């Protein structure tokens, strides 16, 4: 059986695309580069929107990218169930594209923060978290200047009650997000966005002092093996 194909999107200013592709390969999948200006998802099984500063993060993070030609294909596909993971800038793009509710705003401390962060996995039933257990604590790096998740009270309530809060910060919130939210999913659970970077925690030698990010990639790949 051929390996699952995970698309990795590059916008102008995307930074973590190589890392994301490497993480996919390490987990045994095939990483398929997707270019922002192409209206072509190349038939991939899932899509990873990596971090970075697309369009310099000028205006607002993710605001310009969400209008990319590729996004015109991706948005309906995600609504139709294609698994999509956005980390950091990818999460910001998913919110700007309204595939996820709420928005990401300037860190409460007003500084960019790069640190190794403890994270609680609350929902292990999404497309990207099946290999974790609910309540599991993991260590992933965060690195962002605009990661404070905000939404109106009704939205937060719905996220809480619907199990859509997938990740929460533990041991200190790095950005002041509401309810310590680190990552959320859509109602269907196929679209997940988070500020931390699983792709920087998959190897012993490099990146954060953990390999706790591997689960994201094994989760999505197993899903396709089992299909």
């Amino acid at each position, binding site marked *: 059986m051929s390996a699952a194909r995970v698309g990795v999107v590059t916008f*102008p200013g995307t930074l973590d695309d190589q890392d994301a592709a490497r993480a996919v390969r390490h987990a045994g999948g095939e990483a398929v580069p997707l270019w922002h200006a192409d209206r072509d998802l190349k038939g991939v099984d899932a899509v990873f929107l990596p971090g970075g500063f697309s369009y*310099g993060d000028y205006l607002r993070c993710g605001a310009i990218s969400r209008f990319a030609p590729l996004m015109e294909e991706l948005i309906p596909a995600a609504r139709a169930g294609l698994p999509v993971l956005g980390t950091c800038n990818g999460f910001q793009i998913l919110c700007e594209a309204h595939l996820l509710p709420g928005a990401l705003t300037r860190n409460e401390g007003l*500084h*960019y923060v*790069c640190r190794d962060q403890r994270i609680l996995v609350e929902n292990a039933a999404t497309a990207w978290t099946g290999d974790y257990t609910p309540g599991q604590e993991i260590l992933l790096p965060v690195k962002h200047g605009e990661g404070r998740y905000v939404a109106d009270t009704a939205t937060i309530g719905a996220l809480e009650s619907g199990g859509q809060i997938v990740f929460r910060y533990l041991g200190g919130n790095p950005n002041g997000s509401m309810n310590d939210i680190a990552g959320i999913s859509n109602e269907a659970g196929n679209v997940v966005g988070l500020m931390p970077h699983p*792709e920087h925690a998959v190897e012993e030698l490099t990146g954060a002092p953990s390999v706790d990010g591997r689960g994201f990639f094994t989760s999505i790949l197993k899903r396709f093996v089992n299909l």
Partner: protein
Amino acid sequence: MIDSVTRATETPDEPQPYAELGMKADEYERVRAILGRRPTSSELAIYSVMWSEHCSYKSSKVHLRQFGTKAPKSDALLVGMGENAGVVDIGDGWAATFKIESHNHPSYVEPHQGAATGVGGIVRDIMSMGARPVAVMDALRFGALDAPDTRRVLPGVVEGISSYGNCLGLPNIGGELAFDPCYIGNPLVNALCVGLLRKDQIKLATAPGPGNKVVLFGARTGPDGIGGASVLASATFEDESHAKRPAVQVGDPFMEKLLIECCLELFEADVVVGIQDLGAAGVSCATTELAAKGTGGMRVDLGLVPLRDPSLLPEEILMSESQERMMAVVTPEDIDAFMAICARWDVPATVIGEVTDTGRLVMTWKGDVIVDIPPGTAADEGPVYERPFHEPEAQAALNADDPVRLARPDDLRATLLTLLGSSNLASKEWVTSQYDRYVRGNTVLAMPADAGVLRIGEVMPGAEETDRGIALATDGNGRYARLDPYAGAQLALAEAYRNVAVTGARPLAVTNCLNFGSPEDPEVMWQFAEAVRGLADACKTLGVPVTGGNVSFYNQTGSTPIHPTPVVGVLGVLDDVRKRVPHGFTAPDLKIVLLGDTRDEFGGSEWAHVVHGHLGGLPPAADLEAERSLGGVLVDAAGRGLIEGSHDVSDGGLAVALAEACLARGVGGTVELPGPDAFVDLFSESTARVLLAVRPESYDALAELCARREVPYYCLGMTGGPALRVEGVLEVPVEELRAVHEGALPAVFGS
């Protein structure tokens, strides 16, 4: 009115503002002699910037030559000094290029933009060698931690480095942060970039081949940093609107990121004959240098330069320091492919001229010839000064004021905590947490490790497979250099060399940024001459050549210069990056081993500085042979897997090194001091020492390696437990160490 060559010939006696442009009368006369007429104002613009201290190194050149004449024989050197950056062979077909550069003055005027554009500039230097930039580092100096000036400048500088470097996707893998009142009004912002390339891929700044096209690509040209040109414009044009041009440049890191990816595709497609970044002196520098190193001639239509502000005059275009621009020489056959790659990355590109074999750089503006010069005279044949120098009057008294007279403490626990929470020894995390150290997924070690380490094998898909890694560290101690600039420069090199070696990497090559006061002050010039002599001698002894660097003069307020501050960067290579040695005490139940001897050396020490506000005597001896032997032991031992963790011993001595080693992973340790005087053992800053954590079963093998190279070694104790204990002297819980160490900067700058 355009000052064309014709007009210049017709008006030979028209007065010209050369002095306002920083040119001396004899320099101006030389230009007239070279051209056989008065220069046009555009030509004057070119000569004035190209012959400035910054571009021509006219005061430093005669000294810097020693880096070449005394250079050790090294097979690793592929490109030496004189290009945009040096290139070293790191094996398996790979090469590394690295360089450090200052942006001190702009960072004082506008901290955020000054520091940001400092990063941008050094990254373009690396790109222009044909490399992919892979990491940055920053060496910073500010006035006293609590000085109002520091509170204004430091946060902006850090934010500038952070926003620019992070946006480029370059991990920040290390640097320095130090405070001293001498830097008030003269902060130092030195930025380093390292890049990787295949050995057969090196690009040079040269414009050969008549008929080849000259392409300007990247950002449009605006009125950035052309304070100087306004003198010309207002003198020639009597136009008030040009009188107030901004001296500040604003960077656009997004454009630079596009430039990086665009350049890499251009290199991959092999459509570049020569390439040069546009830094200080912009188009003037790029055209004269490219032409001088190529076939010798170039024709440029300045009217084709894409402008952000259409009112710019040719003199201003020539002097503009607009950021994020590059210039390439491309064959006519490749020009379409070149343009297509630029378009794919949304990078504007314009053909502005052509290479010729006339030996002249000719520029036109709306049909008039406004520049017609032999390019080499601007690029390579600038003035060279043998500035007078002599030892400062006060030097002997300074050296005589030995710290032995200072009262030594009884409470060594309190002394440790005082030092650990002092500005220069406190945790730098407030700064480093604003830098992305993980991006691109190749960072093996970064803060708080002694050196940054990168895996290289996955950087360039398609290149030869390799397990190698590179390590980089920068160091420099202004107090040591003040006491003895010759030794101070050597100590800076020794520490950077040692910091690279403690990760297990073999030191290969050196870059340096020499931050000094005014070269017109003979006492400063002496400091400079001594520092260069010291560094060149030390490079020879350690067998590591200088590959490039940067000189920053005029770092002074009134007649008071900063401490002479040579900052030295060392690049090393790990044959197998998986064998890198991590930082500090990595686990309990390891033997704690000190390599190297400790003497009573407190001149310029942190203890004298923090506790007594004292600077006098002589710095610790620079024992380069000992450093070399120590480096050999470290590289061998790491290669054989004998070391579990390491940390070099430097500022603050063994006590601070032990504390930092405990803090790395929260693992305590218990030690017994080897010498008779606990204070000396703990706080002396003797060099050529490191602290290692080794498995008990590896100890004998390590000891044997040390014995073979005559490196002294002392087993001090074992790691483990919740505290740092020095038997019979002090005991501090690791968490108490942490609170003191990590609290100092947030107490001033907020958390």
